[in-house]
C-alpha cells in the first residue's frame, strides 16, 4: 500500500517539477528582434502587397485584419470580435473591437473597414486583390462598430480571404487620403502591434512598439528590425554569429549547418505552399496544349523535389497541396513522369525540336535551381531550354505585369482554403498571367467558391484540378516545406507555414 502511495506521491512531485519551469516563464518586456529577409519589399501598402517572402512578414505586424490565424491555422477574431451570417450567408455582419486606434491617433471604426474594401474594389487603384473580392457587392456601415459585407453569393472561403494581410490589412483612411497611394506605400499606417519608424532602403526596415495596441501588455518587444541580406552566405553566417535572431525559409540544404549551431532552434513544417511551372498559353510555343502537356510529362517531379529541397520532399500530384482537404485523390495524368508520351505529344504538335526560354526570379534561389534541373530533364527528350535568371522586380515587371514570357518557375502560397490555389483562374482576371482560357474552369471557380455543402465543394474542386491538369498551363512542381530558424531566446513565436509572422506575442528570454 505504502509503495503505491509513495510512487504516486513521487509521480506528483515529478509532474509538479516538470511543469514549474513553464509556469515561471513570464513574458519579458523590451528587447529587439532582428529578422533577416532576402529581398526588400517594394511597397508596404496592403493594397498592392504581394505577400512574397519578405513583405508578408513585415506587413503582418504593421496592420491588422478582421480575422487572423491562430497556431493551429484556425480562424480567430482580430479586429472583428464576432460576426453573424445573415441572408443564407449572403451577408455578414462584423462586430468590431472597441477603442482601437491607428498609429496616427485616428479611430478605427466601421468606416475604416468600408474604406479598405472600397479601396480594393476601386478599379482606379489597380489592386491585384480586386478580383479576389469580386463576390463583394457592397459594404455598409451599420454603426461605428458594426459593418455589413454584402455578397453576391454565399462564400464559405471568405474568412480565409479576410485574413490575408495582403489586401485586407486595414489602413488608416486619414493617412491614405493625406499621403496618396504612392506616399502611403512608403509610410504605412495601420493598427498593428508595431509602427514603421525607419525604412533605410537597401539596408533595413525598423518597426517600433505601438504603445496603444489593443491587446493588453502586447507587444512585448521594443523594436523589430528587418534586415535585407540577399546573399545566402551572409544570411546564414549572420544568424550563426548572433547578428540575426530569426530567418524564415532558408534553402533546405543549409539547414544541417544551422541545426548544429547551439543557440539556434530550427522548425520545419509541411507547408501548403508549392513551387509551380507557368507556361504562357497566350503565345507560341505554348499556345498548343499538347506542347504544354508534353513539357510537364517530361519532368520527373519527385527527383526535382529531392534535388532542390532535399530528402523527404515530394513532387506534386495535383494543383492543391496534399495538406489541404480538397487535394485530388488521384495522381493526375500530366503530373506523371512519362518521357515517351511527352516525346510523342511533341511530335504530334510538330515541335520535336522544341526550344524555349525558362525564366526564374531571384526571390528565392530554389526557383533558379528548379529551372536548372528542368532544363537538364527536358534535354533528355531533345528539348532545348535557355534558362534566364531575372531579379525579382524585373521578373514581376516582365512576367506578372508584362506577361511577356514563355515559361517560368513561380513561388506560390496556399492555405487550408482550397480557393487560394485556384483564385487567379477566372475570366478577365489580371493575375491570370499564363493566358489560361478554359470556359468550364472560369465558370467553376467562382461557383465552387460559393458552395456550402462540403460534398459539392469537394466534387467541384476535384473537377477544377482535373481541368487544370488538362490545360497544363499552371502546374505545381513540388510541395515546399516551410522552415524557420530562430535564436533560442525567442519565445512565443508561432511558425505558420506561410508568409506571415505575428510578433505581438513574441518576447525575448534573457
Amino acid at each position, binding site marked *: 500500500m505504502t509503495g503505491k502511495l509513495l510512487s504516486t506521491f513521487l509521480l506528483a512531485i515529478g509532474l509538479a517539477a516538470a511543469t514549474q519551469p513553464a509556469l515561471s516563464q513570464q513574458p519579458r518586456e523590451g528587447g529587439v528582434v532582428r529578422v533577416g529577409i532576402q529581398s526588400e519589399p517594394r511597397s508596404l501598402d496592403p493594397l498592392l502587397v504581394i505577400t512574397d517572402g519578405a513583405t508578408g512578414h513585415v506587413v503582418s505586424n504593421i496592420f491588422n485584419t478582421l480575422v487572423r490565424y491562430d497556431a493551429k491555422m484556425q480562424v480567430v477574431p482580430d479586429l472583428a470580435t464576432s460576426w453573424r451570417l445573415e441572408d443564407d450567408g449572403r451577408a455578414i455582419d462584423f462586430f468590431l473591437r472597441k477603442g482601437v486606434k491607428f498609429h496616427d491617433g485616428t479611430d478605427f471604426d466601421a468606416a475604416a473597414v468600408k474604406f479598405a474594401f472600397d479601396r480594393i474594389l476601386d478599379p482606379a487603384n489597380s489592386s491585384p486583390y480586386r478580383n479576389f473580392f469580386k463576390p463583394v457587392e457592397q459594404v455598409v456601415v451599420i454603426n461605428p462598430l458594426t459593418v455589413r459585407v454584402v455578397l453576391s453569393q454565399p462564400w464559405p472561403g471568405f474568412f480565409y480571404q479576410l485574413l490575408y494581410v495582403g489586401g485586407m490589412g486595414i489602413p488608416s483612411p486619414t493617412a491614405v487620403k493625406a499621403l496618396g497611394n504612392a506616399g502611403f506605400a512608403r509610410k504605412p499606417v495601420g493598427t498593428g502591434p508595431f509602427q514603421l519608424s525607419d525604412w533605410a532602403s537597401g539596408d533595413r526596415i525598423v518597426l517600433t512598439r505601438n504603445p496603444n495596441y489593443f491587446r493588453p501588455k502586447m507587444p512585448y518587444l521594443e523594436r523589430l528590425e528587418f534586415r535585407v541580406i540577399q546573399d545566402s*552566405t551572409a544570411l546564414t553566417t549572420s544568424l550563426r554569429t548572433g547578428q540575426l535572431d530569426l530567418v524564415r525559409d532558408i534553402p533546405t540544404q543549409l539547414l544541417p549547418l544551422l541545426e548544429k549551431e547551439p543557440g539556434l532552434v530550427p522548425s520545419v513544417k509541411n507547408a501548403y505552399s508549392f513551387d509551380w511551372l507557368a507556361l504562357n498559353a497566350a503565345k507560341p510555343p505554348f499556345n498548343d496544349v499538347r506542347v504544354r502537356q508534353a513539357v510537364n510529362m517530361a519532368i520527373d517531379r519527385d527527383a526535382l523535389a529531392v534535388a532542390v529541397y532535399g530528402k523527404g520532399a515530394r513532387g506534386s500530384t495535383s494543383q492543391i497541396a496534399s495538406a489541404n482537404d480538397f487535394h485530388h485523390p488521384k495522381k493526375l495524368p500530366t503530373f506523371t513522369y512519362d518521357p515517351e508520351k511527352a516525346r510523342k505529344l511533341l511530335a504530334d504538335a510538330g515541335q520535336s525540336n522544341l526550344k524555349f526560354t525558362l525564366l526564374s526570379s531571384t526571390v528565392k534561389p530554389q526557383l533558379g535551381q528548379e529551372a536548372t534541373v528542368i532544363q537538364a530533364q527536358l534535354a533528355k527528350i531533345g528539348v532545348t531550354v535557355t534558362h534566364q535568371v531575372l531579379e525579382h522586380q524585373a521578373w514581376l515587371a516582365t512576367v506578372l505585369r508584362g506577361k511577356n514570357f514563355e515559361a517560368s518557375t513561380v513561388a506560390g502560397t496556399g492555405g487550408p482554403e482550397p480557393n487560394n490555389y485556384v483564385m487567379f483562374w477566372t475570366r478577365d482576371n489580371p493575375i491570370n498571367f499564363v493566358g489560361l482560357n478554359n470556359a468550364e474552369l472560369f465558370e467553376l471557380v467562382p461557383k465552387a467558391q460559393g458552395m456550402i455543402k462540403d460534398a459539392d465543394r469537394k466534387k467541384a474542386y476535384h473537377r477544377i484540378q482535373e481541368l487544370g491538369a488538362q490545360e497544363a498551363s499552371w502546374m505545381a512542381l513540388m510541395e515546399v516545406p516551410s522552415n524557420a530558424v530562430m535564436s533560442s531566446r525567442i519565445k512565443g513565436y508561432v511558425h505558420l507555414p506561410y508568409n506571415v509572422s505575428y510578433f505581438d506575442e513574441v518576447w525575448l528570454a534573457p
Partner: protein
Amino acid sequence: MSNALVRIATAVATLLVVAAIVFFVMRLIPGDPILNWLGTSYEKADYDRLRAQYGLDLPLLQQFVIWFGHLLQGDLGYSVLTQLPVAGELLRRIPVTLELIFLALLVALPVGIGSGIWAAWRYGRATDHALLTATLFGISLPEFFVGALLMLGLSLHWRVFPATGFEPFAWSTQHFAHMVLPALALGLPRAAVICRLMRGSLLEVFGRPYIRASLAKGLSRKATLFAHGVRNALIPVVTVIGLQIGYLVAGAVVVEKLFVIPGVGAYGLNAVLARDYPSVQGFILVVATIFLVANLIVDLLYVWLDPRIRVGSPALSI
C-alpha cells in the same frame, strides 16, 4: 601652381566626358529611354511629363544639354524601384563607401609600403622570398574569396568580429568592429600589389649614382635608405596608387555585397540587377567622380613629391 590648375582642369574635363559617355550609352540601351526610366507600372501623366522635361523629341545634343542641366542642379532622377530620388540615396551612401575605401587604404599603404621596404632591405634572403611568395598569392586570390575566408575564419570560427552588417558612424567599437573585416578584405590584396611595387622600385633606386655617392660619404646603409631611397622610390608607387584607387572602388562593390554594407557599391549593384536605369546612371557618375577626384589628389601629390615633373599626366610620362 599652373601645373596644379592644369590637372584640375583636366579632371573636370574628364568628368564632363564621362557624363557625356554615360548619357549616350544610356541611349544605346534597347527600348524607350523614358520607359527604361519609369519601369512598366507608370502613369501616362508621368510619362508625358518626363518626355517633355528631358526634351526627347529634340535633337540629341540638345537633349544632352537639358539632361546635364538637371545634373548640375543635383537632379539625378528617381529610382524605378523605390521612387526615391537617386541623388538623395547616393548622398546617404557616399560617406559609407568613402570610409570603407579610406580604411582599406589605411591597411594597404602602411602594410604594402612597409613590407616592400622590408623585402628590399632583406633582398635575396629568406624574408624576401617569403614576402614575394605571400604577395604572389595575394594578387592571385579573388577578392571575394579573401573576404569569405576572413568572414568564415574570424567571424564564424573564432567569434572575433561580426560577420555582416553596418552600424551608423560613431567613434565606437560597435561601428568599427563591423568595418574591420571589410577593410581587410579590400585592403590586403592592394597591399600585396603595393609591396611588390615598392620593393621593385627601391631595388632600382639602389642602382642609381647618388645612392652610391651617399654610401661613399659614409652614411650608414639604413640612413641612406630612408634619406634618399624611399622618397624617390615612392614616386612610381604614388603613380600607381591612382590606379589602385580604381581597383579599390571596384573591390568596394564586392566587399559591400559580401559584408552587407549599405554603400554606393551595393546600391549600384542592385540597380544593375534590377534594371533600375536612373540609379545605375547616378551610380556610374558618382563613382567616376570619386575616382577622378582621388586620382587628382594623387596627381597633385606626385607633383609635390617630384618637382622635376612638368605638365603632362604621370600616367603617360613613361
